[in-house]
């Protein structure tokens, strides 16, 4: 397998303090290949790729590029060896121009005073942009670009460094369908020019669409490399999670009650155009739409995070005004934001405190405001069991957890408050398949317990799997409504994209 490989990583070990994350992982990529890299949360994918990108240094093992052993201890050294890492969180200077971003590490100079030759810089940058067919002015400030364009800038930067190995970490996570297609075209073009592409993703459909081979990492070891042609989704899933998963979505036995828990009438603001809908008790309502269709904005408006120019909210038959999240919480609404790092968690705080944050007032001794540590601990214990949070201890800082585990903490936190109405914005984002299945079950359990749930997602299958009813949003409006019986993925996507 390794004979014609350009990049070979052999027996890589890496530990953080006492935790061994990589236990002898192997990986190899050929020239002109798009190689998928899969693994569940905590499998060690990021650590492995960060070693390749020069961000972490390995404890043992070797890296060969074109047959030669290489060592590097910084991202810059990795770049010099032709390795570019395009992170999910792009590492760009958002206030600088595109050309500055591409050439920051080697700005061209001219004249005896060695002033920056901006003209030359822009021309050179334009060439790289042309190579990836990105038609933007190199002088454009990066923050004015869309995420897709910013990603392209990262690719141009990688190419300008003569990158032979390009790592994409979940590159499509915030792209629209069309942007994804463009990205894939570029990636294929790079492959055809002989580059090694490493494609990290959670989305199997994309992996099947673009990858030539796939390597799966599980529990710090590589557990298989397969050619995409010779495998199926089911097979790949079972490699990733290590066991065969029979039932992915739970049975939806609960029937929504007649009573309307929440009604939204005529919501308008700069992102929403006259949105109205209602939610019954024990109902799971899905909201589907593309990125930017106004799904999250609707949730934010209901929860009081964004202002509304007009519109009313009726909760349990009573018209109310919600102007702040705390007001919303008092009315029994819980909201799981899509931006968990920014708004869902206090990253510097430990799990225990994060979990109990929304319910602190019920955990304090009257008058003196001391916290009841025991009750907090009990809550945390319950959350750990219910959500299978993997952490060293409840006192570990949330910042140090893997993305999937962070998501579990956010969910657990809101489940603790036990609201009447749950709004979950992309609850399964960045969560591995096993946890996803658990989450779906938790959501259905909520409905069974008489709660009402709104699930916002851009993954149609998951909404089809667990929702009673699905609303489709497009351009800030509700473009369609489908009952569980007659919704299909095709119908939802068509409606979301305006193709009716």
């Amino acid at each position: 397998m390794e004979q014609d490989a350009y990049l070979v990583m052999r027996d890589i070990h890496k530990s953080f303090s006492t935790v061994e994350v990589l236990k002898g992982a192997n990986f190899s990529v050929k020239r002109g290949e798009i190689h998928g890299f899969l693994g569940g949360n905590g499998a060690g994918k990021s650590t492995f790729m960060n070693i390749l990108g020069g961000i972490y240094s390995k404890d043992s093992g070797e890296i060969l590029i074109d047959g030669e052993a290489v060592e590097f201890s910084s991202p810059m050294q990795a770049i010099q060896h032709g390795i570019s890492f395009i992170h999910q969180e792009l590492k760009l200077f958002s206030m600088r121009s595109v050309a500055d971003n591409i050439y920051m590490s080697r700005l061209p100079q001219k004249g005896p005073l060695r002033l920056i030759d901006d003209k030359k810089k822009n021309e050179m940058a334009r060439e790289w942009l042309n190579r990836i067919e990105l038609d933007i002015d190199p002088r454009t400030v990066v923050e004015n670009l869309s995420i897709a364009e910013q990603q392209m800038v990262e690719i141009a930067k990688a190419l300008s460094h003569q990158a032979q190995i390009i790592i994409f970490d979940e590159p499509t996570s915030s792209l629209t369908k069309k942007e994804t297609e463009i990205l894939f075209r570029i990636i294929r073009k790079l492959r055809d020019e002989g580059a090694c592409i490493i494609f990290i993703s959670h989305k199997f459909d994309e992996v099947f669409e673009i990858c030539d081979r796939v390597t799966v990492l599980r529990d710090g070891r590589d557990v298989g490399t397969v050619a995409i042609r010779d495998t199926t989704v089911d097979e790949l899933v079972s490699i990733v999670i290590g066991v065969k998963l029979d039932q992915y979505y739970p049975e939806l036995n609960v029937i929504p009650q007649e009573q309307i828990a929440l009604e939204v009438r005529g919501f308008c603001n700069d992102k929403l155009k006259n949105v109205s809908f209602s939610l019954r008790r024990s109902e799971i309502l899905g909201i589907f739409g593309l990125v930017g269709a106004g799904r999250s904005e609707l949730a934010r408006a209901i929860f009081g995070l964004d202002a509304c120019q007009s519109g009313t909210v009726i909760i349990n038959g009573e018209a109310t005004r919600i102007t702040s999240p705390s007001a919303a919480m008092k009315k029994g609404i819980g909201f799981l934001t899509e931006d968990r790092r920014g708004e869902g968690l206090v990253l510097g705080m430990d799990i225990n405190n994060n979990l109990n944050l929304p319910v602190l007032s019920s955990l304090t001794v009257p008058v003196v405001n001391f916290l009841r540590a025991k009750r907090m601990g009990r809550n945390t214990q319950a959350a750990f069991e219910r959500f299978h949070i993997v952490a060293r201890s409840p006192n570990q800082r949330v910042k140090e957890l893997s993305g999937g585990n962070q998501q579990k903490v956010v969910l657990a936190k809101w489940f603790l408050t036990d609201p009447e109405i749950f709004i979950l914005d992309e609850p399964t984002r960045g969560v591995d398949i096993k946890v996803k299945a658990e989450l779906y079950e938790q959501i259905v359990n909520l409905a069974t317990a008489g709660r009402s749930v709104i699930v916002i997602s851009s993954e149609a299958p998951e909404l089809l799997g667990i929702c009673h009813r699905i609303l489709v949003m497009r351009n800030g409006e509700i473009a369609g409504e489908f009952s569980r019986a007659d919704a299909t993925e095709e119908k939802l996507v068509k409606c979301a994209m305006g193709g009716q």
Partner: protein
Amino acid sequence: MKRALALVLICIMALGLAACGTSGGGDGESSANEAFEARLNDGVNRIGFAMADITGQAPQREADAFRAKAEELGFDDVMILSAENSVETQISQIRDMITAECDVICIYSADADGVVPAVQSCNEAGIPVIAVDRGINGGEILCSIASNNISDGRDVANYFGLMTAGESEDSVKVLHIIGNLSSTAQKERADGFRLGCESWGQLTIVDEVATEADADRIYNAVVDAFRATPDIKAIFVPYDQLLSSVVSALQEIGMFYPVGDERHVMLGAVDGATEQLEWLSAGTNDISISLDFEGFGSEAVTAAWNYMQGQSVAETIQTTSIPVVAGNVDYLAGNGYLWGLSK
């Protein structure tokens, strides 16, 4: 609700403490006197002098004279502390003096109002307080020693008036630079200067600029004042050292001419500092009021001594100031009347 309750609790506790504090000091009057007696008879005569600052010639003269007089009269210990113009520092220094069991504390205050709490502490401890140079606006003061600041300021105005006598009504424009607003001495000088100007018809104050005695602000103030009123004929600053900034500013805008030149801008100040007295002969400035800084120091010690001997002490003791101009500076210096030019 809980929070309110907690607040109330805290308030009650605080009130309780305050009550304890006041009851403890209730019979302060008699015990204070006893304390004073006790200290007097403890075998050590200690006098404290809390100075706003000791930098510059004048306060140094004051401190030197203070020490010399104290030694001459037979004080066992002299404690002189400088607060670097910080009233907080001065307050803690005065508290230190109380702890050190000074028999009398003299204060050249950094701030006439700010220092009052420390004076009250002295009162409670039964230590007499003497205000030196600058007044103090509260507490019980045994005696205030100062020059007649009003008349010092007025003397400068009178000199300006005399020199321009005969000019038409309101034709002589005067710039009045105001120094530290926290200094009673400077405030009184300013009042005196205004009074003086009023008595001369031709003098008119066109601008009063508060500068907090900051050299940079004075500089800018002079430049800007001349932009607004190009024909200013006289400038008054509260003390001599600030004249340096004024001269620099006049040089920048090309308005600096020596005495005798008809374009000369008259400069007057109070203190009698060495450099400004030397300037008088050179024709840079016109008048300085030489204060008796040595007198401040020695009078304070004398008053303290008298009080400790059981004699009565006057509430205010005024030292004599001497107006100095180019014509009398040599004579006065020669006869040792000027602290700035002695030795």
